[in-house]
């Protein structure tokens, strides 16, 4: 045993410094780990803006920045709507169709029914929530994957919206809505919708970081079996995620309508791709259980800057859809790479302090 005691002494004496070091390194790594996507996106946005600023005339002009903000704001909210379900390891393929239903409802209520604005907003929000809740209920009752269920509702809702409106156009002429989508905030380069997106972002951040529902959503997404066995009411949490996703679709509807003004049931048909790009490029793990709200906001900004820049340097519009798809592909590959790297990191940090494991609980 003498040899054992000697080794013990040696390790104990040498331990504190590497332990402190690995502790610090791991802390930084953990902090960065959740924000790598945000940092990378700020870098990408800087490059995009610099490159297009040089290459295309007017890219950095207030008119163009205004329209980038207008679009990015909506896409960010779509990203958050998608993320609500990705976080619980599901997906919402019907974001656009819920948008179509909500748009039809908004048009009908404001134009045909002449309902007051506040009531119209409330009803549209309720319709968005209900449309999503129905999908959630079907998923839970049938046990089918959210992919199949939301795919089915994608066409059901789009068709329903068309039937309901009979293909009618609605010209919205509420001054508040017009100001929301076409006015300015602080500077002529900022659309008020940006503020809407930021407010949604703050609310989402609070949900995921300061609310037990958000925590439970993350738990269910990361490991549904474990969450269930630990007493989390999984069905309730999943339904809540669907409802919130529907609510954000309703918000995106109003945002979209506020700058288009002349709306119809065809709205939303092109929402799916930006919703996924904003979420996945923003660092929301496709496998669930991870979120970065800042990432979603930045990813939407990057995506719409890229699109706008390509238009400004006169890339034909047919060609612009090509990079859109590529961005999604790259985003998914990045997501995978991030997770693969974390997997290889883990055993290393495990063995990082092979000597004595630190004091129980003491170090916090």
């Amino acid at each position, binding site marked *: 045993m003498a040899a*054992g005691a000697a080794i013990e002494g040696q390790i104990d004496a040498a331990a504190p410094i590497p332990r402190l070091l690995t502790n610090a390194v791991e802390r930084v790594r953990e902090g960065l780990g959740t924000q790598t996507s945000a940092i990378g996106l700020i870098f990408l946005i800087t490059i995009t803006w610099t490159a297009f600023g040089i290459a295309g005339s007017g890219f950095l002009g207030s008119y163009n920045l205004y329209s980038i903000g207008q679009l990015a704001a909506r896409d960010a909210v779509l990203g958050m709507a998608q993320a609500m379900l990705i976080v619980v390891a599901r997906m919402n393929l019907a974001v656009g169709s819920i948008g179509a239903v909500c748009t039809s409802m908004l048009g009908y209520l404001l134009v045909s029914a002449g309902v007051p604005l506040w009531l119209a907003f409330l009803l549209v929000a309720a319709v968005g929530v209900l449309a999503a809740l129905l999908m959630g209920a079907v998923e839970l009752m049938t046990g089918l994957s959210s992919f199949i269920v939301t795919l089915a509702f994608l066409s059901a809702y789009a068709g329903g919206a068309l039937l309901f409106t009979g293909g009618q156009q609605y010209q919205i002429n509420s001054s508040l809505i017009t100001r929301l989508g076409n006015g300015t905030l602080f500077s002529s380069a900022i659309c008020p919708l940006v503020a809407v997106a930021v407010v949604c972002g703050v609310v989402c951040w609070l949900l995921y970081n300061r609310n*037990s529902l958000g925590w439970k959503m993350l738990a269910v997404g990361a490991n549904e079996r474990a*969450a269930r066995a630990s007493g989390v009411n999984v069905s309730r949490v999943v339904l809540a995620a669907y409802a919130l996703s529907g609510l954000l679709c309703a918000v995106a509807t109003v945002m979209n309508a506020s700058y288009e003004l002349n709306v119809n049931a065809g709205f939303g048909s092109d929402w799916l791709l930006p919703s996924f790009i904003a979420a996945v490029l923003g660092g929301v793990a496709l496998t669930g259980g991870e979120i970065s709200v800042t990432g979603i906001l930045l990813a939407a900004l990057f995506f719409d800057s890229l699109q706008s820049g390509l238009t400004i340097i006169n890339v034909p519009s047919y060609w612009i859809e090509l990079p859109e798809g590529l961005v999604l592909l790259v985003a998914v590959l990045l997501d995978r790479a991030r997770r693969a790297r974390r997997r290889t990191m883990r055993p290393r940090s495990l063995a990082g302090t092979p000597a004595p494991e630190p004091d129980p609980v003491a170090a916090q």
Partner: protein
Amino acid sequence: MHQEPSAEARVETLALQNISKAFGGVAALIDTSLELVRGEIHALIGENGAGKSTLINIATGVYRPDRGVIRVGGQVVHFSSPGAAAEHGVAVVHQERNLVRKFSLAENLLLGRQPVNKGLVSYRQMVADAKPWLERVGLHFDPRTEASRLSPGQAQLLEIAKALTRRCQVLLLDEPTSSITDAEFEHLMGILRELRDAGTSIVFVSHKLEEVYALCSRVTVLRDGRNVLNGVPLAEVSQGDIVRAMVGRHIELFASTGATRRETGPAHLELRGVSTELGHHRIDLTLHRGEIVGLYGLVGAGRTELARSIVGLAKITGGELRVAGKPAKIRNPYDALRHHRIGYVSEDRKDEGLILTHSISRNVGMTVWRRLEAKMGWISESRVRPHVTPPLRRLDVRMHRVSQPVGSLSGGNQQKVSAAKWIAADAELLIFDEPTVGIDVAAKDAMHRLIAELADDGTAILLISSDLREVVQLADRIVVMGEFRILDELAGGGEYGPISERVMQAITAATLAASPVARDAVAGSPTH
């Protein structure tokens, strides 16, 4: 009692000398040695993460050492691949089974080396070839039997047979006994002794010291990648010495303090004629406050399934379940926790017990968020922390901080976190399902203490375990289960020998009884 190889028989077979290995700059092994002689069973022990697996992987050519020498029969060798190690007669049986469940025993045994005749596999030849190897390890089965029909212990024997077909001189067994029964262990022991007497060197990795003492002659202990004991004859060291060597400090093993039966309170959980969708029929079981009931049985007896039915992870189809004297309907673990304060520490730690990618705090806190949240569910880490740290401290969880992902902890510490969650929840009834499988001595001891303390404080505890010693040691009452029925019930805290005998009798009797009953049922049914 163990035959030491006599001086002239001390022929070195495999020697790993002064091996060092680092991964990404972090040392996993430092100057570690393991030397085997012909015809010995050599114990290799250490806590999880001490470097046993790395050492075994180096011995079998999976990893290459950074420094150090490997010798086989006195010749220096360099294993460039697992195949190279096998050519030198070094074979390994890993902890996780590598059997193809849908293949026959013969196919599994000779996988990749099937006898070929004109380009086609000759099944007849394969069956004939397989037979003697199966007999050799005591598997008296038709070689055409599907591997899925083997019990975990028999699967282990098949793995050993597989290693033997490669004509190995050195056999490395990585925790071969973690999922087998006492009887199967006795059988395995017999076979390993035969192999030893025939000249094979065997390395036996185990967390169970009783087994080590029963089987091995020498012991090598690793701690933090170094040799603490190097090939010391077991006759010269006590269990306490070994534990001290492994954990680096002295711990008084709870299991050796002797059991005391405790005064128990009123009935807390009662199952009356309960049937479940998983196949239980008319189960009667009562659990009192402050009582530990050990639920023992073989793998597949229906114990985990019963636990899952109690907490609502499976449906109860008949009979009555009462909690604290009142009939209770538990639809899911949420009901179990919220309305009845029942917690379930799952045997499946990685998939059901924990969210490995989430922090320790989130894992432990999951059961108490509901209690701590303000209106509208607002909550914060700082609000949860005071409720999360006491159970972690009580269980002596080794960690840097509570924000660390659970997946970065060692197995034993993960298991502690999985239990800590229910302590934080103040459960009144806790079901522990195989709480000490695959965890090291110190962590196991901590779990044992915890279970006993919880019961002392009035918690009703159902302890599911395949480790009869653990059950005898901890339980106030032992319930024996088999074939989804309750076979016998006896008092705990007695001598291991007689209890084990009675438990085994109950199980054997049930197995024997099962066959004529089944036959009668088949014969009887069509005529009515």
